[in-house]
């Protein structure tokens, strides 16, 4: 389909070779959206990994030391993950209402800042989608890394301690190398998920203002179903698909490696 000029409203179509790809790549808005997508994916993924790691370490430590709140924190974080994406979008929209009645703006004003237009300013809107996506995705990252931490044998830590390694050194030289495969698998998976985020952005900003939060997944959908350019939509889909497949192949490589341990 990506090699045709197929359209939803016109049943006739011809094969036009790479024209659909050409048109997509030459269009101004594609690059705006590609940029938005890269920013969205990159920042979300980094935040999800870092927050997921901090939480996984804290919960792991908490469970081992029988601290209060380890399991409740785990449940709280995981809960964010089972809430449907559409609801997450609405949840954040309600929090980010752009007058000082919105709760986040209220707190900002209270702490001496001025009201921020979270959803109508292009840059802030992109940041808002990143925040909401991180809220949703950190749980997955945390549970993967937590599972990874469970598999590090305790005696390695004991040995490191005998050798006089401090906590940070133990993390750097024992934990990280041991859970490296899990970290990479996690990285690949959250990149795939984030790249394909659709429902949450749909209800949070609908791609706007302008095209500021129209990541490629939305661009593809709108191109196909609102602007009826199936050929061009399919071209974008093929590009996204290739990123997905490349990520998957990397994932499988890691998966096989890990199985051979």
């Amino acid at each position, binding site marked *: 389909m990506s090699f045709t000029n197929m359209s939803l409203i016109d049943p006739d179509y011809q094969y036009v070779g790479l024209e659909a790809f050409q048109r997509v790549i030459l269009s101004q808005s594609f690059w705006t959206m590609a940029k938005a997508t890269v920013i969205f994916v990159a920042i979300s993924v980094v935040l999800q990994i870092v927050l997921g790691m901090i939480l996984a370490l804290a919960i792991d430590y908490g469970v081992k030391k029988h601290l209060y709140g380890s399991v409740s924190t785990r449940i709280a974080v995981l809960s964010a993950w089972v809430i449907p994406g559409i609801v997450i979008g609405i949840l954040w929209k*309600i929090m980010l209402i752009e007058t000082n009645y919105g*709760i986040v703006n209220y707190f900002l004003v209270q702490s001496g800042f001025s009201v921020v237009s979270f959803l109508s300013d292009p840059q802030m809107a992109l940041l808002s989608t990143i925040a909401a996506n991180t809220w949703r995705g950190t749980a997955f990252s945390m549970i993967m890394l937590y599972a990874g931490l469970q598999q590090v044998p305790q005696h390695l830590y004991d040995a490191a301690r005998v050798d006089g390694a401090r906590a940070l050194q133990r993390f750097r030289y024992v934990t990280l190398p041991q859970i490296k495969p899990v970290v990479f698998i996690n990285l690949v998976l959250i990149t795939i998920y984030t790249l394909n985020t659709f429902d949450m952005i749909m209800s949070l900003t609908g791609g706007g203002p302008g095209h500021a939060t129209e990541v490629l997944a939305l661009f593809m959908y709108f191109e196909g179903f609102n602007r009826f350019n199936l050929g061009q939509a399919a071209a974008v889909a093929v590009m996204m698909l290739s990123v997905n497949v490349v990520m998957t192949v990397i994932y499988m490589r890691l998966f096989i490696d890990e199985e051979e341990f």
Partner: protein
Amino acid sequence: MSTETQIRSIANVLSTYTMATYLVFAVAMVFFLFPVFWVMSMSIRLPGEVLTYPVQLIPQQVTFEPYRQVLQDSSMVTWIFNSLKIAVLEVIGIIVVAVPAAYAFSRFDFRGKKHTLFIILLFQMISPVVIVIPLYNMMAELNLLDTHIGLILLYIGLQVPFSIWLLKSYFDTIPSGLDEAARVDGCNRLQMLIYILLPSMGPGIAVVAIFNFVFSWAEFVMAFTVLGESELYTVSIGLFSFQGQYSTDWRVIAAASVIAMLPLLIMFIGLQRYFVKGLVEGAVKG
């Protein structure tokens, strides 16, 4: 004792790491629970209390009027019913397909087994968003647009791969000695699967069921594309269309959101132990 000395003595008891951990817990609790709390708080307010300044964290007066409005004046009840129907049929379909498949992958050795498993996984990694356009064309040609059965078949197709993987790792944990004992007693393969293995598969099947239930409750792109009429909507699309309609009354939107997420949250919190265990064993150990 002054408060300062009190704090210092507590600090002496707790190590730095413990305190750091509690700090992380506290921040995480606020960050992850606050949005949910806030939406609930919005949904039980009187109209005048939504836009008050200073903002009230907990409403002074509680009303369930927004909930009444959602349940009576909109199609929410129909949507919930649709979602339930689709989710239940999808889960049943997936279990019927995935259990025998996972059994075969776990117990038989055949040529290309590893490759088949990887191809299955490859399909799982492809997101619905990317393939929604060709799927739309296929559904149109099969006359399955605007039907629940079409959507259910799509969901089964999309979710079977992951379910097979998860169930396979469960089958792998059941010792094959059990199979042999059953065979000595004269069971054929099917009887063995139903009477001997299924009972010990309980936790695995539960995880698959929860996972797919949550998936189909939340799924948006496919349902949004395939279902055109509002009586056919699932909760997710219903809520999305609803948001446009009631864009001015945050209380009603908040109430609808609570209705859409609460059943899942309650179910999940009740079953999360299973879920974490299943994911830890299924996803990471492979």
